[in-house]
């Protein structure tokens, strides 16, 4: 179905009056107005004085930060029960949420805070119409558009959004919307436009990343000699930006913030790039050198997570490359290491 983009946004702005169950609406806005630089986007609360941008490329922060908070109380758990809508979620981040679901909901335990955010959020994804310099989802079997994992998906067709429904919850939202704004049926030619646009962006992606293509024998990464890893990691300063901004990293530290009245546990992000990460009492650590820790991140993403969840921990969002203080290009490292892994065999 089709809705006019402007009337869709005006509906969002009025949504709180229509149905107050949605406590917050979060969507990407331009985060800087420097005309020369490529734009960057960040998730913000709906603000009717600004124009959101749903169909550009991914936000600077992963959607993870809205479901797995940087700092969050996990015991005792408070019933948040706050319904919210997040729009403009990209395919790479949906893929990451899918992996986080496996890790945090389907691994024999349930992270209670993550589950609450997940249960109470309506996700409206949107196609990428442009590419960030570091975008590389095509290298890890991804696409710049979503085919599942969303409640609703938006693709731009001229002045309209073409809406695809992905869940019952999405259907309910559409029913509510139909009462307020005009919703037209989409035609075969609308679908053709979406298809052609998706293909165009995907082809641009392939062309852009052709020199970064890597092999897929990920379980052989660990066989690559340490010297090559030393070479790859020689610029790394171990700041951990890559892991904190990664949409699939969820390593945590648990702080005890108990009061005299009750026990309180708060989790926040940890990073395997930090020296103290796996250190045990007495000072022993399995990865004392930066190279060991650098290598661990790649093995975790491509080998360990694959073993644990039957999918790799990279969505190709490129944020680690963008965030790297030492300008290490993750894609280059993967390419070089995968090439060496192939040689080992």
């Amino acid at each position, binding site marked *: 179905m089709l809705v006019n983009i402007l009337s869709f946004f005006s509906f969002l702005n009025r949504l709180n009056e229509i149905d107050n169950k949605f406590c917050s609406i979060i969507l990407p806005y331009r985060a800087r107005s420097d005309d020369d630089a490529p734009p960057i986007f960040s998730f913000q609360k709906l603000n009717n004085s600004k124009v959101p941008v749903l169909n550009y490329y991914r936000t600077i922060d992963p959607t993870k930060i809205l479901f797995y908070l940087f700092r969050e109380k*996990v015991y005792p758990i408070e019933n948040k029960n706050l319904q919210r809508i997040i729009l403009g979620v990209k395919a790479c981040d949906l893929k990451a949420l899918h992996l986080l679901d496996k890790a945090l909901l389907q691994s024999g335990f349930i992270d209670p805070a993550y589950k609450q955010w997940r249960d109470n959020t309506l996700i409206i994804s949107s196609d990428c119409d442009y590419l960030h310099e570091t975008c590389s989802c095509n290298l890890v079997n991804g696409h710049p558009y979503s085919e599942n994992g969303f409640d609703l998906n938006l693709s731009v067709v001229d002045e309209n959004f073409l809406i695809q429904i992905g869940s019952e919850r999405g259907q309910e939202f559409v029913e509510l919307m139909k009462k307020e704004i005009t919703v037209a049926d989409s035609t075969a030619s609308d679908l053709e436009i979406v298809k052609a646009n998706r293909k165009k962006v995907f082809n641009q992606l392939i062309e852009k990343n052709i020199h970064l293509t890597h092999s897929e024998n990920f379980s052989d990464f660990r066989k690559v000699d340490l010297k090559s890893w030393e070479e790859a990691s020689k610029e790394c300063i171990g700041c951990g930006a890559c892991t904190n901004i990664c949409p699939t990293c969820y390593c945590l530290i*648990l702080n005890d913030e108990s009061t005299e009245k009750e026990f309180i546990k708060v989790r926040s992000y940890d990073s395997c790039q930090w020296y103290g990460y796996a250190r045990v009492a007495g000072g022993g650590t399995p990865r004392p050198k930066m190279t060991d820790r650098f290598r661990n991140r790649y093995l975790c993403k491509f080998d360990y997570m694959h073993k644990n969840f039957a999918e790799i921990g990279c969505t190709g969002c490129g944020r680690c490359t963008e965030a790297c203080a030492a300008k290490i290009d993750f894609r280059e490292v993967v390419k070089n290491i995968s090439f060496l892994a192939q040689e080992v065999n």
Partner: protein
Amino acid sequence: MQNPYEVIPAEVYEIIQESPLIRTLRFKPKKPIPFKTGQFIEVGIPGIGEGPFTPSSSHYIADDMDVTIMKTGFLTEYIHKLRVGDVIGIRGPFGSNYPLEKFKGKDVLILGGGCGLAPLRSLFLTMLHDNKDYNSITFLAGAKTPKDCIYKDEVSEWRKYDNVRFIRAVDEVPPGEQWEEDVCLVTKLLQKINMKPDGNPAIVCGPPVMMKFGTLDLLKFGYKEENIYLSMEKKMYCGFGQCRHCVIGGYYACKDGPVFTYAQIKNEEAIWD
């Protein structure tokens, strides 16, 4: 929905100074914590933090537990300052346990050193509860010096069982200390006993270097890789496979372990570090 971060308060009612650096805390959790021997719990001090420890008491008692803890870092320093009446926070139990059903009818060998005796005491006490189910139990226990030996007051009790051997060794006897038992590395005791490796289990826990050479010796004597059980103590932070600190290759020490067979993990990296 069970919250894996749930904390069960527990009151410390007795503290035993086992050795200069090792103490056993005895505590009663506010609600019972049923566990299987070999599994671990997180012991926390309000406002300070928590760490993984394996109960050293029998798994037949769920409402009165012991943990034996060596002073070796930030948290354990605080644990050693605890007094009778203090309240600690327990999470768990977590992880895999010793497969007792596989040990039944067998000649069971237990090899431990230092504070690694803690989980082994739990296993040992649990087995003593049904000691007739096992053909024999041989417990080889090591310590640096006589005063580092732990569970001193219990040894004579343990030696009363017909099918149980409890053999101790210290690495050295400093001048002025008394010792009438063996003086050697605990792994050397393996040569002294009449071992029956064939199809029998050996359970090892201790400092990494002892576990490594103990395992290699056991293999040399003919124990099978799949019958050597190791307690892999890594940084088990959350306890259920979320925080990833204790990952050993594709395994989690907290969830797939801490009890692993050597066959399971022999090809993983840095297992002894």
